[in-house]
């Protein structure tokens, strides 16, 4: 065999072996990659007594809508839709959200809708925009969420239903159980001790405190201007809110151990190991891969899988334990492949149960604290978690991240994101 022939054969062999590589990239999720270009949130403030206690949802939402447009530099007129999650405002605050869009300078030609899937509304908004992009309806949109728990009352939001019939159907009846009691039920049924819950809650505060000290949240927080004074009798003025209010430095399991159970006699769920009532908003700019590439947008994260599942309403807190594996299956990943989990801390009991059930190492869970320290503005939480997760992954160079939460009336939602910069 001549040397020419040998080099020819080598070339062909090399060529052929190129056909046999196990591809390194992940399969496209449904109809093509959907990417997050910008993800930002307001500070999260204590409901009823915090900086946003009299701030309406339009004023909370507008700054984040404006900020994601500004940060990305996208032409707002090219947005295909804005979807906003909201739980407590009447009619999910559809009118207020549309008004906020105009405050943010987004032209009226861009449509907007609001939606409510309880605590996953912010994630659901994102998934709706992602699905629309994947089905080719448009190339770019904003997903977000907003909640004012100051101006609404969760405890009085009793549904207008046929209670005679509800009482005859066990599952329907379970939908009336207060969330705190479902937490106690999870703790009892799956043996999550009060001590473990308090330890978990204290850790949430400690992690959030550390994150604040390290200035980590600065990248994801959009300062919000609110009018101060007025009703308090002080002088009228404008205050700029820049920081989260819920974090209690120095929280220890021992201190939390002294709190009384909040929801049922002898229950382990307390105000200290539950999420806080909070006001806030978040927004995520979502684009098709093609549009992001064409416009030279930075890609913060790529959606690789998502799932919403149903679970028994009386133990609704277990939702993430079912939703996370379903979303990971879509992304063809295992729990151990994931580097960071943002699992909403509705209650320490349910979050801890899910972490244990899925055998997630604790250091991967909510590295910057969760809703116990930061608060849980219901409709905004999903979008808030996306912002916190993607900034954390970018900072730390982690590749795979998961956002998940439990949902009242018995559901769980989860989404898997990839930080492509970490794959290279």
């Amino acid at each position: 065999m001549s040397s020419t022939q040998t080099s020819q054969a080598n070339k062909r062999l090399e060529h052929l072996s190129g056909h046999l590589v196990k591809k390194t990239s992940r399969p496209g999720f449904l109809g093509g990659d959907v990417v997050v270009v910008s993800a930002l949130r307001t500070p999260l403030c204590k409901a009823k007594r915090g900086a946003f206690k009299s701030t309406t949802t339009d004023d909370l939402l507008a700054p984040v809508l404006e900020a994601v447009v500004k940060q990305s530099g996208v032409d707002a007129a090219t947005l295909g839709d804005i979807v906003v999650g909201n739980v407590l405002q009447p009619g999910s605050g559809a009118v207020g959200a549309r008004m906020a869009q105009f405050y943010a300078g987004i032209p009226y030609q861009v449509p907007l809708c609001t939606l409510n899937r309880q605590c996953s509304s912010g994630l659901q908004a994102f998934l709706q925009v992602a699905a629309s992009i994947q089905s080719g309806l448009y190339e770019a949109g904003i997903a977000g969420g907003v909640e004012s728990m100051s101006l609404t009352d969760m405890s009085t939001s009793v549904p207008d239903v046929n209670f005679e019939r509800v009482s005859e159907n066990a599952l329907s009846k379970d939908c009336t159980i207060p969330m705190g009691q479902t937490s106690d039920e999870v703790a009892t049924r799956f043996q999550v001790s009060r001590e473990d819950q308090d330890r978990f809650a204290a850790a949430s505060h400690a992690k959030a405190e550390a994150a604040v000290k390290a200035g980590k949240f600065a990248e994801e927080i959009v300062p919000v201007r609110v009018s101060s004074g007025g009703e308090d009798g002080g002088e009228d003025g404008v205050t700029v809110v820049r920081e989260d209010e819920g974090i209690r430095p120095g929280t220890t399991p021992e201190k939390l151990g002294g709190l009384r159970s909040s929801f049922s006699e002898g229950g382990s769920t307390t105000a200290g190991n539950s999420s806080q009532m909070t006001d806030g908003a978040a927004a995520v700019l979502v684009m098709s891969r093609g549009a992001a590439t064409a416009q030279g947008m930075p890609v913060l994260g790529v959606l690789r899988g998502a799932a919403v599942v149903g679970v028994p309403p009386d133990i609704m807190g277990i939702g993430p334990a079912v939703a996370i594996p379903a979303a990971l299956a879509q992304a063809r990943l295992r729990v151990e492949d994931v580097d960071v989990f943002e699992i909403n801390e509705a209650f320490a009991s349910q979050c801890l149960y899910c972490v244990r059930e899925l055998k997630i190492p604790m250091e991967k869970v909510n590295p910057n604290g969760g809703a116990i320290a930061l608060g849980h503005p219901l409709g905004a939480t999903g979008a808030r978690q996306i912002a916190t997760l993607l900034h954390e992954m970018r900072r730390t160079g982690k590749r795979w991240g998961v956002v998940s939460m439990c949902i009242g009336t018995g559901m769980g939602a989860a989404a898997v994101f990839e930080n492509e910069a970490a794959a290279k």
Partner: protein
Amino acid sequence: MKRDSFHAANTAGGGLGGPVPDAVFQTQFQCCSVEFSPFQEARLAVATAQYFGIIGNGRQHILEIGPDGNLREIRSFLTQEGLYDCCWSETNQNQLVSASADGSLKLWDVMTSDGYPVAHWQEHSAEVSSVHWNQVAKTSFLSASWDGSIKLWDPHHPTSLSTYCGHTGCVYAGIHSPRHSHRFLSCGTDGSLRIWDTKLPPSHATSLALGRVEGGAVQVVRAHEGEVLSADWDKYQDFLVYTGGVDRSIKMWDLRRPSLPLGFLHGHGYAVRRLKTSPHQEGVLGSVSYDMSCRVWGPTRVRGRAGELWRCEEHTEFVQGLDFHLFWPGRIATCGWDRRVCVWTLPFA
């Protein structure tokens, strides 16, 4: 075609042991391509290459399905270099072209008495990966090469009519549109699917200067992240194209809106080597893969979404060739590196 006939069929594998071929022919070298004659329903051409096409000779077989249903050889031509593809002439029932690893193209006539081609062209500077005859104009054919170019030929002309450059890296297929004589597609190493128009001069690119289209292609679709090994036009819808590649997926494209694929067909465990759309059933296509399987895809009972309808795992090596019979709906042929040519009848048609 009745859509119900799909559903009556036993899908995906056909039960225990998988489907059984109607006829099998063993070749001397590894098979690279198979194509049914557009004139004689019993006839098929098979291009083969020695030592997996890496080194050695090639042989162009012409086979026939005999009255007994078995495959037999009626002619074969030995070549110096391996043959990677072949296609039948659309004007002369006895002629066919072979794509050679040495960059040459050879036009054979089954009726000749010697072993030489009736025409021979040497223009490509690297392996020719694909040849495809224009089924509308019938007077020309395309060749695609690892040298990165696609050439248009008239069998009566001593040199190529045009050369189309634009791909970076190898081109794996140049396929004429089944409906427009002047349109063709190409795909290759660079992950792109390109649509070309032979009415436009090949120098179109330079005249456009820094234009948005590359190398004279009228459309460039970023189809796969890795190499695109095969592509075909839908035979019923002008704007639909399928691509398959090293990333193991098959994608469906609407050329009017190519920013995202219309759909995916997942299932192959390794690169999709070749895919062809059915001339008989809208929405049906076949694919063969390095995973040693041949699969047929089409609308399924699940809301009519495209999915796997049939699969054979008879081949024991990479499957390289695939064709749909033009006169006999449901009849397909496959061939592979196990040196076998198999003819099948799909359980739906």
